[in-house]
């Protein structure tokens, strides 16, 4: 098979899988909220609430696209594209099995950090170009938050990279199989906690949802968006949720590996194990989302700069000392 055909097939599969995973995450999120807060809608209405995400998507698709007079039109129209392109690009390095991966890059984890930083531009330009004070404030808060939490996200992964001696995602999983324990037990528990907190902040989910903050900023940087463009922001949020949890499952929880199962059958059970672990983490974030109140803006910055970054630096130091000792 030629390179371009292979590429086309891979892109096609990712384009088909990503919205499906976003749909599953949305369903888990609304059903979780309904289950925790006794909301009747998503539990009982229409096929026991399972029709909800499809109905929401259809609703946004048939809505009118409203573009206010004062907006900077090209910037405003293209802002959602940055965000969705960045999150779709991350599918490249998610391994469902040693061979079932778009491309096992040598710089896998570094690729994740580089590509995920692109979506910040989308958020910022959306906030600026909307010509709306709420949007601008939302964009500003988002930028401050994304810059602050990108650092602990990167630094917590560095500990894993030092321990695994590789940046490739498949390589990290193989190292964990060789160890016998996933990295969350074998020394990187703190890094896992930091990664999950920073990832939640990067996704702008509650308790870190100040950039959206409905009660203060209407819808933050998305205030002026409607119809299909709002849907793109919404979907990319959930795709991002899936991707971040998949990455966390890969580098901390052993990815596609499951103890006591024969490794030669990994291509069959690998995707199921991987999806199971991923959706377990998604469920964890759903529970966090519907249990915690929103932080205050200064508390959020304090948490990042004064707690998470020093802790992750400490983690790197401890990991490198252990690496030299053993």
């Amino acid at each position, binding site marked *: 098979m030629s390179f371009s055909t292979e590429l086309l097939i891979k892109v096609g599969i990712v384009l088909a899988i990503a919205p499906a995973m976003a749909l599953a995450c949305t369903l888990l999120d609304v059903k979780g909220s309904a289950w925790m807060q006794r909301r009747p809608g998503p539990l009982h209405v229409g096929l026991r609430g399972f029709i909800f995400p499809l109905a929401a998507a259809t609703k946004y698709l048939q809505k009118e696209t409203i573009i206010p007079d004062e907006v900077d039109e090209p*910037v405003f129209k293209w802002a959602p594209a940055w965000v969705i392109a960045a999150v779709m690009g991350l599918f490249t390095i998610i391994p469902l099995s040693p061979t079932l991966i778009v491309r096992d890059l040598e710089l896998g984890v570094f690729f994740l950090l580089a590509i995920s930083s692109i979506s910040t531009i989308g958020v910022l330009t959306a906030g*600026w170009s909307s010509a709306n004070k709420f949007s601008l404030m939302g964009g500003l808060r988002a930028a401050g938050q994304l810059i602050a939490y990108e650092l602990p996200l990167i630094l917590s992964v560095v500990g894993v990279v030092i321990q695994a001696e590789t940046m490739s995602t498949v390589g990290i999983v193989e190292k964990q199989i060789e160890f016998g324990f996933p990295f969350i037990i074998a020394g990187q528990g703190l890094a896992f906690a930091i990664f999950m907190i920073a990832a939640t902040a990067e996704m702008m989910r509650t308790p870190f949802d100040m950039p959206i903050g409905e009660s203060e900023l209407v819808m933050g940087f998305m205030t002026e968006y409607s119809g299909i463009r709002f849907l793109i922001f919404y979907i990319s949020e959930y795709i991002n949720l899936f991707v971040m949890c998949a990455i966390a499952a890969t580098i901390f929880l052993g990815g596609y590996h499951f103890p006591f199962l024969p490794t030669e059958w990994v291509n069959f059970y690998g995707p199921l194990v991987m999806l199971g672990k991923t959706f377990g983490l998604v469920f964890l974030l759903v529970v966090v989302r519907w249990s915690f109140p929103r932080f205050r803006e200064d508390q959020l910055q304090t948490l990042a700069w004064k707690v998470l970054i020093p802790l992750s630096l400490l983690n790197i130091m401890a990991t490198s000392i252990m690496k030299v000792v053993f």
Partner: protein
Amino acid sequence: METLDIISYFLLLVLLLSGIKVVTTSNVIHAAIFLVFTLATTAILFILLAAEFVALVLILVYIGAVIVLFLFGVMITRAPLGPNAELDNDKNKIFAALLSLSIFGIFTFILIQTFDSTVVISEGTSTKLLGEILLSRFVFPFELVSFVLLGALIGGITLARKDNALIDEDQI
């Protein structure tokens, strides 16, 4: 001509056009976005040259941090976004053209002097090699650069920090 060559020339064209747009557009935010295109195209060219690490550093540092801080700065400082009559004088155009042409000339001269028509082929990716060289042969300049960054950091904090004596105690 191979497909790769066609892609390379197309990317160079995009690079050139977006680079020109960065300096000719009269809106600061548009200039920043065209700069993103310029940097992204450069990153793709680096990937085509099998320098993955440089490409990803370009994306992480320049697109992910520098441009974001740039947009952030523009948004919080109420900087004038549109054309500015004071800055828009024609007499500097000749100097600008001369300066850019001379920089172009110097780079072309150095590149032709150094490589001429020799083809450099690297075996696979070289990130591991890069790391080893940085921490062995070039460890001194590497550490020196980090001290420069530390100095810049301390300088930035000193400039931005209010003098203790001037802070009204009620405000804290």
